[in-house]
């Protein structure tokens, strides 16, 4: 009886989707800033930077982890949570949205984490992937942050979080709002342990993510051109009934507003993180000094030679 649905439709869909994946527009995308056509296969090795204008495109989490860690890092397993606590559906069921995103992204949710060394410094990094439902924070993302903080505690190292998120995940309702205090508790654990916590604010960082852990870093780094703020542009425009000034909520403006410490281009991030982690590694250093002070000198020396980034450590902040 359902032959039309069960047979004809899937066949048609297969036909359509095969056509789609082979089409030329799937191999290229245009730079949102300068419209230059960028070959998709080249994006990972170019760190998702436009080769013409330097625009920072949004970066997938696996590529990000790959780009900041030295070789040999390990991914943290994805944490299981109670799925779809509200049995939410809008035009589509939340469970189906999750399923689609998972199939497309080959991961469970919006945050992926790993442990390893960054420019020689031990660290845990948690990375938001905007492609997974706009990087929205529900219980899975919250759990990933708690897990990453716990890993940093057990390894006695710093935590770096790369944010790229529209905010709380509406489909989890109040449970997603509860991720604000939850993620803040995660940062508080590092605070109490005296371990460094650095936030790298990538495009975009808004809503419940900006109003929680993302604004509580020891250091706030932003990527060039990133939009960072609490309320969305449209909501503000509706409230104040005027168009917003050029550069509003952009990293380059926010550094003047005192929201962030520095803007660092993507190709320099790993080296900069390594340096900052070393500068803030007081606790680990204390332990080493108590052991054998000459070890520490060697470690510091090695650090500046081995990072291989070609970035001058004493260079002034790029902004």
């Amino acid at each position, binding site marked *: 009886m359902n032959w039309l649905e069960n047979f004809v439709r899937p066949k048609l869909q297969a036909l359509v989707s095969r056509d789609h994946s082979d089409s030329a527009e799937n191999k290229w995308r245009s730079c949102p800033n300068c419209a230059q056509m960028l070959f998709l296969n080249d994006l990972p090795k170019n760190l998702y930077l436009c080769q013409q204008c330097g625009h920072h495109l949004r970066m997938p989490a696996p590529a990000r982890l790959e780009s900041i860690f030295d070789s040999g890092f390990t991914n943290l397993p994805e944490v299981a*949570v109670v799925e779809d606590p509200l049995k939410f559906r809008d035009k589509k069921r939340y469970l189906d949205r999750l399923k689609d995103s998972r199939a497309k992204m080959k991961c469970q949710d919006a945050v992926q984490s790993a442990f390893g060394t960054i420019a020689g410094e031990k660290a845990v990094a948690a990375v938001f992937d905007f492609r997974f439902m706009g990087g929205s924070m529900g219980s899975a993302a919250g759990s990933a942050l708690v897990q990453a903080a716990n890993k940093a505690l057990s390894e006695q190292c710093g935590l770096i979080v790369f944010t790229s998120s529209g905010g709380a995940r509406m489909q989890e309702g*109040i449970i997603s709002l*509860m991720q*604000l205090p939850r993620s803040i508790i995660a940062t508080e654990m590092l605070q109490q342990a005296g371990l460094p916590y650095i936030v790298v604010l990538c495009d975009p960082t808004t809503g419940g993510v900006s109003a929680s852990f993302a604004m509580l870093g020891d250091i706030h780094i932003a990527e060039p051109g990133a939009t*960072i703020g609490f309320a969305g542009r449209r909501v503000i425009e509706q*409230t104040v009934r005027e168009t917003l000034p050029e550069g*509003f909520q952009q990293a380059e403006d926010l550094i003047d507003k005192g929201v962030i410490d520095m803007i660092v281009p993507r190709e320099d991030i790993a080296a900069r993180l390594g340096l900052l982690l070393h500068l803030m590694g007081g606790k680990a250093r204390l332990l080493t000094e108590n052991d054998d002070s000459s070890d520490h000198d060697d470690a510091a020396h090695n650090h500046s030679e081995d990072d291989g980034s070609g970035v001058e450590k004493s260079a002034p902040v790029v902004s």
Partner: protein
Amino acid sequence: MSQQLDFESHINALEARIRELRLSASEGEIDVADEIEKLSIKVETQLKQVYQKLTPWQKVEVSRHESRPHAQDYIDHLIQEYQPLAGDRAFAEDAAIVGGMGYFFGKPCMVIGHEKGRDTRGRIKHNFGMPRPEGFRKARRLIDLAGKFHLPVISFVDTAGAYPGLDAEARGQAEAIARSIQACIRVPSPFVAVITGEGGSGGAIAIAAADRLLMLEHAVYSVISPEGCASILWRDSSHRETAAKSLQITAQSLNELGITDEVISEPTGGAHRDHPATFRRVSNALKRHLNDLGAIPAEQLIEQRWQRYLKLNTA
């Protein structure tokens, strides 16, 4: 004349008739006591019927009703020798959040809350209960003070949300909310939050990340307004009723989800119909929960508060 809600217009008509009768009775022209008595019973019955099965969207309307008791009303009736405190010590005083110290049942405490304002002038002064960064920074200051002096914290939550304005953004709205939540999860004294009306997202949780969360029977608490959710997910704000239902924002739903510790029942026909009864019920609940928490050492209190959030929705 106070604000009318569509779903109770038939009751409002009866109430108006009672008022008319009372007026004529007081002039002594006719004896209408029986008629008033009959109508009053009818009103009571119909109010019970209507308020027992309010839809989530209708609850949103009740929670926003302009005659509901506000934070300042609760403070005036529950707190003795109230000493209002003002300012963030950096930029300004933001009256969208009120707060200060006083006695609750004879014990010193810190109280904070969103204040929407009662009349036009009041609403403008209090910015309709929508705080700017200064408001959240004041809240943080007060919560920190409470911690320093071992004062229990009571918060009354009633806001559409943080103010979405250019100035608020420019002065770090996101950071101000984050720091206020941080103060909540850090404070080494008992902390009870009551959602009295509208619990609007980040602006609400900024002063609600407490040891105990109480909600009035017809209050709502949500990550986003039903209108906002509808316009994003359904691309049409007229789906607000569906959104209100899907988001599970009523006290009853949130109690089932384990978010609240107690739902405080409202007088028949909602808190806006009987302020004194509402104050009594809220006061009793607060007293009970603060007594419970008072017996717990500070360190254990914080640990329990953290676990409340850390364990939430974990598999």
